[in-house]
């Protein structure tokens, strides 16, 4: 039995374990390192960040390997820069910017757009910066901020590396079509949530202002 034919039963076993197991509370096995793990998962638990990062990583993975490497390097630099700026309180991000970015990049993934370096590098830097500037570990205790930063950087850049690496390794036609389908899913989700955000903002603007006693200011 060769290694490829072993993968299917192993994959089925792994899938069954995760699909049919009950949820367990995750806790760190090493005292004090929970901050690191918690912030390592930060990008995944903020859906707008995850959407934008996965879309960008897919796009990088669709490019030639040299461009993928440059893109990942620039994305990392942008992320660290954004994180530093947000940590000192100079700026912060917003969800609609991430969703707009995910919409655009997801569209590029579904079209399998082969971007030139002059476009790809600034795009990757901007994405890294946008996610970093909205990821400051403000809730971490001061004496554990370094661990929080380390977790953020390793988790975010690790996710980008894995997704782009896996995408770059997909060589068969149907696999690359699957990546384009995932890109279209990202576009669809981003469009829906952006519409909801805009609709809610429009409703808030239309609502009449109320005084402290609950009566309309126009009465």
């Amino acid at each position: 039995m060769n290694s490829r034919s072993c993968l299917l039963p192993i994959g089925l076993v792994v899938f069954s374990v995760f699909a049919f197991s009950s949820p367990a509370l995750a806790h760190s096995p090493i005292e004090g390192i929970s901050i690191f793990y918690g912030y390592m998962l930060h990008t995944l638990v903020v859906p707008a960040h995850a959407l934008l990062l996965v879309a960008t990583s897919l796009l990088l993975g669709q490019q030639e390997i040299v461009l993928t490497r440059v893109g990942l390097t620039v994305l990392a630099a942008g992320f660290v820069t954004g994180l530093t700026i947000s940590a000192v309180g100079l700026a912060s991000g917003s969800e609609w910017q991430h969703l707009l970015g995910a919409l655009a990049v997801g569209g590029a993934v579904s079209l399998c757009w082969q971007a030139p370096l002059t476009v790809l590098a600034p795009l990757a830097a901007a994405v890294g910066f946008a996610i970093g500037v909205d990821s400051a570990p403000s809730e971490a205790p001061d004496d554990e901020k370094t661990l929080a930063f380390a977790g953020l950087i390793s988790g975010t850049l690790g996710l980008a590396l894995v997704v782009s690496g896996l995408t770059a390794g997909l060589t068969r036609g149907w696999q690359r079509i699957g990546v384009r389908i995932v890109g279209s899913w990202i576009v669809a989700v981003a469009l829906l949530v952006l519409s909801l955000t805009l609709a809610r903002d429009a409703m808030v603007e239309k609502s009449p202002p109320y005084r402290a006693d609950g009566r309309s200011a126009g009465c």
Partner: protein
Amino acid sequence: MNVQVLVTRAVRPRNRTLLLAAAGAAILLFSLVSPVLAHEGEGAVGGLTSGLLHPLLGLDHLVAMVGVGLWGAFLGMPAIWLLPVVFPMVMALGGAFGIAGLPLPAVESGIAFSAIAIGICVALALRPPLWVAALIVGAFAVFHGHAHGTELPIAANPLTYALGFVVATGLLHLVGIGLGMLTNSSAGQYAVRAGGGIIAAVGLAFLTGYA
């Protein structure tokens, strides 16, 4: 034609991967059906689960989505992948209309009719030009999206809810594509066309109020 030949043709290396992917998608989707939620779930995970379940718990959604994948497999390349790429984006456009409160007349009837139309196309083995097929599927995608989109604002976590129903829709397409691989044999073609008839019948039941 004996069973051995039928199975051998259905599980050619190129088809085997698609069949496995379709089977995996079906297992994943239907393992989620057991918790029937009476209301939208809470938090990110609850939103994701609610979104995943939404197309599955609506039989009219479910059969229409499988029908799109089935018809794509019938039409062959490039429809087999173009439809699953375009459909979610057009569906999201319909969803945006629903969120914005733009009225779309007879949404539920449109969804039922989509099952009828796509089922008939599969049953009669219709192979129109690609742009006609895309137009038909796109028009119906707006109705499905509008129905999902109107429930988005009440979801606890709209983003994960949207992710859930978009992914579930895509996996249903994959199930349909996997079933469509049976068209490699003549007996399989009859089976697929019969499936199209069943899809159309389900749509008719919804349209006439029997379901």
